[in-house]
């Protein structure tokens, strides 16, 4: 009996204690609780999206190495590792403040360097927002390594990588997106639409890539004196395709994540993203089929990416039907752009300039043309202004940067280094030591039965002598 009384007393005491802490629910406390759940959800979605966008770094790495030769595989991996690492630190130290700090002029920010907005115990939203933004900055930076592949000096590249994340990208980014935090850019105040960054991220990367490819010059053996274009075959199409699939996946963080809020808007953005990629892929495949006689893997892969880049700007403000059209146009546009740049002898091993620069511009324009609110010339005008402003800021700045690097520590490797491969020359490494890669001279071959000899471009003796 004593035991029963004792146990009952304990139970009653527990209940009393539990209820003693609960105030009766009021409308106010309910509202606060609901807001807290929404805020927590915002954090979760934004950071999950940031992780997806981070994974796009793996996508870029695989695409770039798949489309280039085996003798440079280690170098591509190193450049991609550094793009993200240096980008993270550069954006932490300088870039984030320039892009999102308080801005008196609307041209650049002046606060928030070294994440000074964050105080221990204070609102951690700045951390989540920074995390989301840094993966975007790193995306812009890593676009360029593809266009400059196979002949860029590693040390020179590192300098560029820091400058683009710390300076070039954030300045333009602030013009278009500064108001998302403490800043406020002149371009966004005019109503410029670039929801997830067709221009802010992709065109910035694309025009930097153009500057780099021009300053560097083409790879040895790519263009002959009599005007022929000799293909330099990528060494691993499955890796390239894997890279595109990873990028496609990551884009589901890139576009819908730009709401930085967990709400129903993300559904249409997801759908638009996917439809544009699919349309771009199909149209590029068809275009290559018609032009070359067979559906070609390289163009098809570029087509999917082109669709993704194009829809990045309008993804939140167009219908799914429009998304298909936007992606389809990008798929055709990218193929002709790739052919064009080869014709004017700008060597872009992976098509970065065409996919990101050209299709980024198209996507930004399409946000004006296909706006759900309806067609308006003033909206299209602002879009064109933004496209032009991006080019006029990014291309000359990066051109000068690359020229400066070239004149000081040198931007391009020597012809001997280019022939023997950057893996050996720059990193004393061999990415595929088990394979008899006869690449120390420009020709990539695989050993084993049935390995066909590729019709790879080789340096002419004159090019080597002339070096």
């Amino acid at each position, binding site marked *: 009996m004593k035991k029963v009384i004792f146990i009952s007393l304990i139970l009653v005491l527990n209940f009393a204690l539990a209820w003693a802490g609960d105030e009766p629910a009021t409308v106010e406390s309910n509202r606060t609780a609901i807001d807290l759940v929404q805020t927590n959800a915002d954090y979760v979605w934004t950071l999950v999206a940031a992780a997806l966008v981070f994974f796009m770094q793996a996508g870029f790495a695989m695409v770039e190495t798949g489309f280039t030769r085996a003798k440079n595989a280690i170098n591509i991996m190193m450049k991609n590792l550094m793009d993200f690492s240096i980008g993270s630190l550069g954006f932490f130290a300088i870039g984030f403040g320039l892009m999102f700090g308080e801005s008196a002029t609307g041209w650049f920010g002046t606060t928030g360097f070294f994440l000074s907005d964050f105080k221990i115990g204070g609102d951690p939203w700045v951390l989540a927002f920074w995390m989301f933004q840094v993966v975007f900055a790193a995306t812009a930076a890593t676009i360029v390594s593809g266009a400059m592949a196979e002949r860029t000096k590693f040390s020179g590249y590192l300098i560029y990588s820091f400058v683009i994340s710390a300076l070039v990208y954030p300045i333009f980014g602030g013009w278009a997106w500064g108001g998302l935090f403490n800043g406020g850019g002149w371009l966004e105040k005019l109503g410029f639409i670039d929801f997830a960054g067709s221009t802010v991220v992709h065109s910035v990367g694309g025009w930097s890539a153009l500057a780099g490819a021009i300053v560097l010059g083409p790879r040895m053996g790519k263009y002959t004196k009599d005007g022929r274009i000799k293909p330099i075959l990528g060494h691993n199409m499955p890796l390239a395709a894997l890279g595109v699939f990873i990028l496609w996946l990551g884009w589901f963080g890139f576009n819908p994540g730009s709401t930085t809020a967990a709400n129903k808007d993300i559904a249409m953005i997801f759908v638009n993203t996917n439809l544009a990629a699919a349309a771009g892929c199909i149209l590029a495949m068809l275009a290559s089929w018609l032009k070359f006689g067979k559906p070609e893997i390289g163009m098809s892969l570029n087509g999917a990416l082109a669709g993704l880049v194009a829809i990045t700007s309008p993804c939140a403000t167009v219908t799914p039907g429009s998304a298909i059209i936007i992606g389809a146009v990008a798929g055709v546009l990218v193929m002709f752009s790739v052919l064009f740049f080869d014709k004017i002898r700008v060597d872009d091993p992976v098509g970065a300039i065409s996919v990101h620069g050209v299709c980024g511009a198209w996507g930004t324009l399409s946000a004006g043309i296909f706006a759900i609110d309806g067609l308006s010339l003033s909206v299209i005008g602002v879009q064109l202004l933004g496209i032009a402003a991006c080019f006029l800021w990014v291309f000359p700045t990066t051109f000068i940067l690359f020229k400066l690097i070239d004149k000081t520590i040198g931007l391009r490797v020597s012809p001997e280094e280019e*022939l023997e491969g950057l893996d050996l020359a720059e990193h004393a490494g061999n990415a595929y030591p088990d394979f*008899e*890669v006869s690449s120390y001279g420009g020709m990539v*071959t695989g050993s084993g039965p049935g390995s066909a000899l590729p019709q790879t471009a080789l340096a002419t*003796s004159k090019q080597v002598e002339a070096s």
Partner: protein
Amino acid sequence: MKKIEAIIKPFKLDDVKDALNKIGVTGMTITEVKGFGRQRGHKEIYRGAEYQVDFVPKIQIGIVVDADLSDKVVDVIKETAKTGKIGDGKIFISTLAEAVRIRTGETGSSAI
């Protein structure tokens, strides 16, 4: 008939092939080989450990021609495969006893 084996730097293959086509050489067989003579190999590093790679990749071209074309072939290879730097390679000429075309059974010069 002469058999000519030339070991050359891999990136010279296209030039040598084009030059040989021009003087009437209609076929060849190539092998990827590794070797060294006076050309040194190089050092590589893996996770902090250094190692020496002695063998340098080369391409070996094998051609069989009539004896009267042999000197011309050797001259063309010498000229187009040369860079002037160590590692340009070597050419070996031997006399061939017989050659047979499998499809038709022809022998001798008509098999080349």
